[in-house]
């Protein structure tokens, strides 16, 4: 079985107020993170594409409906900002006396202006909202499209953009990299990490600093020296070593240097006479995840971001 990060990541993303998908289903989950395409596209373009895929998948999972026509949204936004923004806020989240329309039940139940139109045309005299009789039905439709886009933007957490996260001190990051963090024990900024900031967006890189399997990638995608290996010693003393392909209470499998796959049945509890010695070259990262503080993490990110 491939040990990908799909399962865990998708599960984390989907842990809303309902449930994690069970691991068996997550490979088809709506919200799988997309693997980055290192070096194939300019980073911002790749980020855009990756973000769109994530947003579309999440929109489908959340069943928030079709996105409104972008041209109508744009027209509606201009009209809204000019006409409604003073009271309701430029982003419709409330302003000088006007309520938040993104959370408005009337707006949430609107269908292409069906609810919004009468309020705009007639006003709400009791609540201080003037009437706007000259706004056309087509303009109401555009405003409705804009408000729908605002609601979808609030609801679709797959579309949220991470802000500038490169806030650390690169110099301090270098000191940590070469010193307390022991990163330089295995990594070189002129070797394996040369140009790493060109390959990954900062948020992906920040995750990879902690544990170096990119979203959507599996352990088998790691360079050979980073992959887990195991030596299995049979009761008769015979040993087989290779990449660890699987390990649970009831099975262990390795692939030897010739590419041959070997597997053994286990009885659970480790009392079956098989001895399994595992070596994980990424153990330092497991330790790092559990011990690093946010300041050091942000500093190392700032340092690696200089490697363009």
């Amino acid at each position, binding site marked *: 079985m491939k*040990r990908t990060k799909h399962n*865990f990541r998708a*599960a984390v993303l989907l842990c*809303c107020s*309902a449930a994690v998908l069970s691991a068996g289903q997550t490979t088809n989950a709506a919200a799988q993170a997309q693997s980055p395409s290192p070096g194939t596209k300019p980073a911002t373009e790749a980020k855009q594409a990756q973000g769109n895929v994530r947003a579309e998948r999440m929109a489908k999972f959340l069943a928030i409906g079709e996105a409104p026509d972008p041209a109508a949204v744009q027209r509606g936004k201009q009209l809204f900002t000019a006409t409604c923004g003073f009271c309701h806020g430029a982003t419709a989240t409330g302003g000088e006396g006007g309520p*938040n329309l993104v959370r408005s039940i009337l707006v949430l*139940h609107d269908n292409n202006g069906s609810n919004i139109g009468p309020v705009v045309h007639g006003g709400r005299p009791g609540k201080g909202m003037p009437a706007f009789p000259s706004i056309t039905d087509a303009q109401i439709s555009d405003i409705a499209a804009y408000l729908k886009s605002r609601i979808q933007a609030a609801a679709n957490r797959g579309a949220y953009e991470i802000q500038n996260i490169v806030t650390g001190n690169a110099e301090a990051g270098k000191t940590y990299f070469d010193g307390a963090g022991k990163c330089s024990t295995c990594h070189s900024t002129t070797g394996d990490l040369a140009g790493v900031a060109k390959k990954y967006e900062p948020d992906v890189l920040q995750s990879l600093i902690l544990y170096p399997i990119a979203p959507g990638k599996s352990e088998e995608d790691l360079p050979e020296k980073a992959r887990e290996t195991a030596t299995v010693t049979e009761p008769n003393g015979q040993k087989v070593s290779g990449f660890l392909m699987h390990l649970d209470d009831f*099975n262990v499998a390795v692939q030897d240097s010739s590419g041959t796959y070997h597997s053994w049945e286990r009885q659970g509890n480790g009392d079956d006479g098989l001895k399994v010695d595992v070596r994980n070259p990424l153990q330092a990262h497991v330790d790092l995840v559990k011990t690093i503080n946010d300041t050091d993490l942000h500093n190392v990110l700032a340092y690696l971001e200089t490697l363009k």
Partner: protein
Amino acid sequence: MRFRVLLSTLALCCVPAGLFGELVSNDMLLHPPPNSWPTYNGDYSGRRFSPLKEIDAANVKGLGLAWTHQVNPGSGPSSGIKATPLLADGVLYFTEPDNAWAVDARSGRELWHYKWESQGGIHIGNRGVGIYHDWLFFETPDNHLISLEAKTGKFRWSVVIADLAQEYFSTPAPIVIRNHVIVGVGGDSLDVPGYLESRDPETGAVQWHWNTEPRPGEPGSETWPGADAMEHGGGMTWNPGTYDPDLNLIYWGTGNPNPVHAGASRKGDDLWTCSIVALNPDTGKLAWYYQVSPHDTHDFDATQTPILFDAVYKGKKRKLLAQASRNGFFFLLDRTNGEHLLTTSYIDQTWASGTNKKGQPLEIPSKEPQTSGALASPASGGATNWFSPSYDPGTGLFYVNTTQSYSIYYLTDTSPRPEGYAGRDSGVWAQCALKAIDPETGKVRWSHPYTPLHSDGAGILSTAGKLLFTGDPYHHFVAFDPGTGRILWHVGLNGNVSNGPITYELDGHQYVLVASGDVLYSFKLLR
């Protein structure tokens, strides 16, 4: 249009004596007979402990497949069977989103299938049905409570229990208490308030409605900055609760406050989100509450089953309530009045510095989601989640499938009026483990860890046969010794266990039933 797959005449003939009696009576719910599993957790206590012991530690090696049954939910992606099947009169009743089935518990033969035509909503899973007399009740992603005739699957009525346009969606199994059908709701994409309702089993009408948030001026409102924050404060009731008939109190866990990851517009403790609440099932009146995550910003719903049991604590027999909460802490309370007895952490959490005098975790401010990212354990999926824990009165231990996870929490919406999730987290590493917690000390008595980076979401069943059944993250269904954690039996399934296993006795023999994906697997001793 709604349709249902009709019973064949042959299938009708297989439905036994229940044709002439009440399928599930109040007495059955109070004292479930061994040939039944009449409510979500098997009984009202939430222990998921069965007194059956035909299958025991000595003979469990002889456990083998009795039958399997694959359901076909029709078009669209399947969530798999996350429901705990109910058993009454030899028939199993269970759901997937928009779907309900009746299956012969002896053979796996399908008796009927009901399909609801959905208007939308999140199809992440459904926890199952509730049964009152001869009627089934289940909730749908588009927030309908549907009632069917149990014997035929015939539609009786549906009522709307929440507003789809506000992004509510409904997954819980209704809990039937006397003539109350208790329904919870879910949904935190937009900032909407949570609630719990009791519905009339005859008509679906509202009997009472309890709001997760207080109203302005009411006790608890001082924990919010104002009416607007309360009206949009979240706190969903999406996992079935438990019930103590002697105290006549139901116990429910409530979900995270909204906006989910941004606390700026809801400064304060945000009662009664992320809380365990005790309500009167006849009135919906709050008897007491205990908040396990004041002012949560990590999506740590406290909806995990509050398990009820009586045990000696510090030399005195007490009526207890225990929850292994999503935030990584184990809580022990006196369920008569909510008195806090004990808090311990059952994973290595890093978001709280300790606990206050009331035993509530103290959040480290810098571990709230930050624009540049805050690394914390556990991830938003939590140290555990919806899958059922178990309490075994024989060992006196509380069992829970846990995840030691680390994640970077990002705040993405820094405006004074944040919306929806307002942030997100990015998981970096995780390791699951089955753990046994001693409720008297809160300490982990034994732990069975799994290989990192695999996720597990299986429920747990314990039995008087000194067995604990659950799934591992590698498609196995496993029996453990609940005293020691030693593995006694296992079988490979088609995928990971996707629900909580149940057990029952039919014709003098004990069955163990579990689901993986769209398949039910039934096991018994093979002779």
